[in-house]
């Protein structure tokens, strides 16, 4: 129990630190007053401008010290008030932006992971059954290549082949299209994310399978006359899936980072694009909100993996 409390406490502390660092960075490196008022903030001669400056400072607590501002922001944030988008006309709430964009990023991630799993599991099984034969070695080289190609480069290549030359996919994302049309538009970006992920999963699973295949119980099964394929599927796959699930969860974190690039290349209006735009416009509340969401996702994922692992491996629970 103490173990879990510690874990949980650590997670909270982590999120607090991340928020403090981001808040600090944006306020020190950027200038919130300019961000809010524009050039008027520098017009210190005109009494009207001065009045505006002072009003803005009071409203946004800019005259208070940084830690106090952070605490105030944090207080709002945990009660669900993410603030308003500074740089949008009319200053709509940040939660509107999140609500609009998060589903797109999520669909992208879900599609990517599904594709990666569907590619990697059969491939790994096949590789394991042909371990170290030339086809397996070739496949190892291929997975190496899949991991080595950076996601933005892969995105360009895929875009060129499938969207431009073959015309299978549209060049721009239209948010108002019907559901399936939108999902189709996400296929290419999802593939871009799925390819390196699939390679990672395949390599891991293959290694695991091969190791498991060397264990005694497999030998027993084979000696009892169980067929090769049956052995692979029924006996070797299951124990290997533990670590697969773990890295699957962990890799989701990596995919979130990849989604940032991919969304910008394929012009998908998701969280990744939102945060890049927000940073460039120094829209503090949006940046903070998205950073917190992503970090929270990381932390939750890790906790989840811990939970799964402890359920699977009794030794960890016992400690």
């Amino acid at each position, binding site marked *: 129990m103490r173990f879990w409390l510690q874990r949980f406490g650590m997670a909270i502390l982590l999120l607090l*630190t991340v928020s403090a660092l981001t808040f600090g960075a*944006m306020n020190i490196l950027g200038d919130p007053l300019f961000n809010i008022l524009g050039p008027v903030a520098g017009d210190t001669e005109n009494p009207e401008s001065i009045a505006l400056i002072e009003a803005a400072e009071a409203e946004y607590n800019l005259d208070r010290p940084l830690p106090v501002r952070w605490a105030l922001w944090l207080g709002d944030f945990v009660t669900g008030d993410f603030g308003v988008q500074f740089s949008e006309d009319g200053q709509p709430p940040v939660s509107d932006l999140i609500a609009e964009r998060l589903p797109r990023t999520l669909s992208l991630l879900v599609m990517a992971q599904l594709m990666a799993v569907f590619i990697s599991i059969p491939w790994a099984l096949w590789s394991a059954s042909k371990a170290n034969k030339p086809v397996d070695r070739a496949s190892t080289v291929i997975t190496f290549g899949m991991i080595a190609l950076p996601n933005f480069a892969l995105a360009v290549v895929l875009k060129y082949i499938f969207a431009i030359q073959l015309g299978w996919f549209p060049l721009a994302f239209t948010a108002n299209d019907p559901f399936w049309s939108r999902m189709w538009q996400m296929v290419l970006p999802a593939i871009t994310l799925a390819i390196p992920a699939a390679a990672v999963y395949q390599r891991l699973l293959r290694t695991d399978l091969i190791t498991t295949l060397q264990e005694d119980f497999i030998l027993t099964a084979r000696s009892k006359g169980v067929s090769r394929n049956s052995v692979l599927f029924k006996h070797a796959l299951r*124990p290997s899936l533990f670590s697969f699930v773990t890295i699957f969860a962990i890799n989701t974190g990596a995919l979130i*980072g990849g989604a940032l690039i991919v969304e910008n*290349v394929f012009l998908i209006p998701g969280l990744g694009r939102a945060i890049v735009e927000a940073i460039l416009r120094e829209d503090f509340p949006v940046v903070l909100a998205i950073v917190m969401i992503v970090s929270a996702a990381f932390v939750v994922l890790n906790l989840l993996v811990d939970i799964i692992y402890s359920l699977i491996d009794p*030794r960890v629970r016992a400690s």
Partner: protein
Amino acid sequence: MTETTRSTDAGASRAADPDHVHLDDAAASLVPSIAGLEADAAPVPDSDKAAKRRVGWGFWVSVTWLAVIVLAAILAPWLPLKDPELPQPPVVGERPPYAPSGTYWFGTDQLNRDMFSRTIWGARTSLVVGFAAIAFGMLVGGTLGMLAGYFRGRFDAAVSFVFVVLLSFPALVLAILITALLNRSLFTISVTLGILAVAPVGRVARASTISFADREFVLASRTLGARHPRIIVRELLPNVVIPMSALALLGMAVAIVAEGGLAFLGLSVEKGSTWGKLILNGASSSRDLQEAPWMSFAPIIVLFLTVLALNFAGDRLRDYFDVKETAL
């Protein structure tokens, strides 16, 4: 993260030291290529072991390519290359960009600049950033990791926490924040990417140090009255450096890719070319990509081969030195 892939050894070691396990390695997979390759650092099945003890011819091919690229980059000012910034005289009646030909091996871009020359000059910045970033990471991360692994206790807890924070922060976002808000000089970008390298490198250094610190030769040294600095430098450092160097090549690959990602968002160095900038220049307009694909594909291929070579060589080295990521 490697512990999590092992159901046997890791489980035991996790049971022994539950505090410093999961969050660190879990978050390590922020970086896909390291994550993927770390998977291979799991204990190798017998059938693969035979392949392990030699680095193999692939290693030497990779090293050769890297040597060629690095030399080309260093010697660029003296090589007979066309000026990478100068718009070449256009062909009458035909507008740039021109396809690859005898005059322009990789073709030209929209401003009629020679792509071959730009790719080689782009290598300079990309490689420098990659090298500087991992060097920074190894220096800072390696030192912190070693000290943490050696002294343990509260210092270790603090350093480990810092590592975890760094790893929990969405990496690219941190890089974008700093480059967009501060400036985009070569120095800033290198240091930013270096900061991102601190945690992964530090973890390896720490784990390595821990595993070595319990060994007899260290104990012996201490019994003989050696002081901490001497032990760290004379006994631990030589041993820790080996796994870290194997990681250096991998880390460099990651840094180059990260710079490319930044460049692709338009946030890399302002002046001069890098591979990422070149790729962006050729791909940001679908029309350009359609009509003049060589503008992107030339740097893509060079980047791919370089990252592949770094990854492959680093992977081979790691197998050769039999490096395990952690041995907690």
